[in-house]
């Protein structure tokens, strides 16, 4: 069951399944390597922005946008 990036616990690694955001926001995410198929480690969650680490670097994603990034837990 995919859930949103905003709901992932700190320290877990997940895979992005889909980005259901507007064109501008999606393009921004894709350009930074945050696109379907990418593995991301959630560094910080809770109130405020979500911080994730990918193979390409560390990024902060606004909570509202994080809700629109659907992910799958790695087994």
């Amino acid at each position: 069951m995919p859930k949103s990036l905003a709901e992932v616990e700190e320290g877990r690694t997940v895979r992005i399944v889909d980005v259901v955001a507007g064109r501008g926001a999606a393009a921004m995410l894709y350009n930074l390597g945050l696109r379907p198929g990418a593995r991301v480690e959630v560094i910080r969650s809770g109130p405020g922005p979500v911080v994730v680490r990918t193979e390409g670097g560390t990024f902060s994603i606004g909570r509202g946008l994080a809700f629109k990034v659907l992910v799958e837990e790695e087994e």
Partner: protein
Amino acid sequence: MRVVALVGPPNVGKTTIMSRLCRTSLEVGNWAGVTVERRTCVYEFRGSRYRVVDLPGTYSLVTTSEDQRITRDVLLGRLDEHPDVIVVVADALNLVRGVSLLLEIAELGHTHLVLAVNMMDEAERLGLSVDAQTLERRLRVPVVPLSAKRGTGIRRLKRAIADVAEGRIEPDPPRAEYPRPILVAVRRLAEELERGLGEPRERARGLAIKLLEGDVDLAERLGGDLSERVERLHRELSEALGRDPRAEIKRARDDLASEIVRAAVSGRPALDRQARLDRVLVHPLWGGLLAGVVLSGVFALSFYLGDLLAEPLEDAFDALGDWARRALPDPWGGLLGDGVFAGVGAVLAMYPYILIMTLLLTALEDTGYTARVAALLSGPLSRFGLHGKSVFPAALSLACNVPGVTGARIIDDPRALTVTVLALPAVPCSARLTVIAYLTGHLPDPWRVPAAVSIYAIALLTFLGTAALLHRLLYGPIEPHAGTVVELPRMRRPHPGTVFRVTWLRSNEFLRKAGTVILAASIAIWALTQYPAPLGHGSAVEVIGRALEPVTGALFGLDWGSAVALLTGVLAKETVVSTIKTLHLRLAPAQAYVLALVSTLYIPCASTIGAIYSETGSARLTALSVALNLGVATLVGGLAHLALSVA
């Protein structure tokens, strides 16, 4: 002379590599037609001369901003710059991104490539080792590990560049494998481009990939009905794949890149400390409190140190003015003393504040802290069409709008960048602080501070309001969350060389303006106060002021003297104060408050208008910014006058 292009994501140290390659001969200019910085330099190796061009930092060749467009256009051969060798600079700790970019560039038909892996020292310290030979074998491109900060590996880089330039090494990078439907679409589109636009085969394929990856700007620029054609192919592909083809293309490249990198890199970097830091720095409460403390500290320090430096500077200009008035015959004494030294001196006295604040904020940016503050504020700011990083130019604008406007370049979202630049003049600079402090001094005692604070609050609301309005006017409704992705570079100690260089670049614009625009305007205004008769006896400004009095009187309850003060304030806001003093104006408390409010908001000063024009390159946008300011100031000033005269 051979041309070497440096390409890479932002923050990988390209500029430092450049200074290591050449040592001297660095030239800074602009790319033709746009105000994106263009740095070049020249060095000699094995008897040949090489010209190095630093291309704007970019994450990918599908562009989202003006500066990235330049990098893409150079690599597509669409600009008058054809590199013989392309050096892709990667960060050893984020190697996949660099390798992925290299594969993307190779796809456009470039094989004359070198991969420079920077920050090797830092990677080793964090427990990561990069096997350059394995990387080289898999990529079939020369790989040079180096540390630009320490200057190691630079000679090897020069050798690799020469080897590729002289054809001693012929790189042959691998290609990503795309799903069949994408390959078919690429081939079809490439054939059409070859036939229709006469693009050479290899480049046509690269162009086709970029178009399918969703480069809307490129489709529009290539013209014809290409945009629709690509749109159609896109829909077909989405159906055939069941997924977004743009993401699929990137995924194929990233997968190949990470497979190659995984074979060459061992060890996991110990980034726990970074993660722990980020948990605090990006925390809405703790991070927010810390940001408040840090930013207040920056302001306090700038004003404290700025005062120390500004006072002797002001005294020096006063002394020069006195000397000129005494020693020179009229009108030269007056021209130099009251026009040049008084006008330029008042503006130059701002420079210490600007310099120190720019230095402190640039140092904070270099540590990576600014990105954390931007991340915290990106949520609220994106609702107004701004970006998290808009906070940096806004903070700088509190000292002076000119470096604020120039410093806005760090915003990597083009729309948010334009909106920020145009809305910034609403942020009260230190010159306006002088005006606010002087004028609220006319108020009875318990009201001074609240009045000053209220002006700052109104100005801040105006900044946010005009930003939102500008976004709607220029780009339509604000897309929620678009500006909330912020890259967080690793926190590190600031690098003094970089900090000083960037501080100088950001603040010298102000000095240049003081010597040109402000000098000319000071002389003009002085002349207007002296001819046809001296001030107080029918000078030109009085005539203009009296002509404006019906308007300012009806709107704000201000007489001709204040109108003159507002007029001269266009040159530099602190002139409002000196005009009030020279004209010996008497202001009632309500008048003083309204005048302070209106002078804060009504128009960007001459230097800021110049800066906005040179940043946006558009007279239309500059005029829009001025018009919005005038409109808002009229509205707010009028309302305040109304409220105060009722009360």
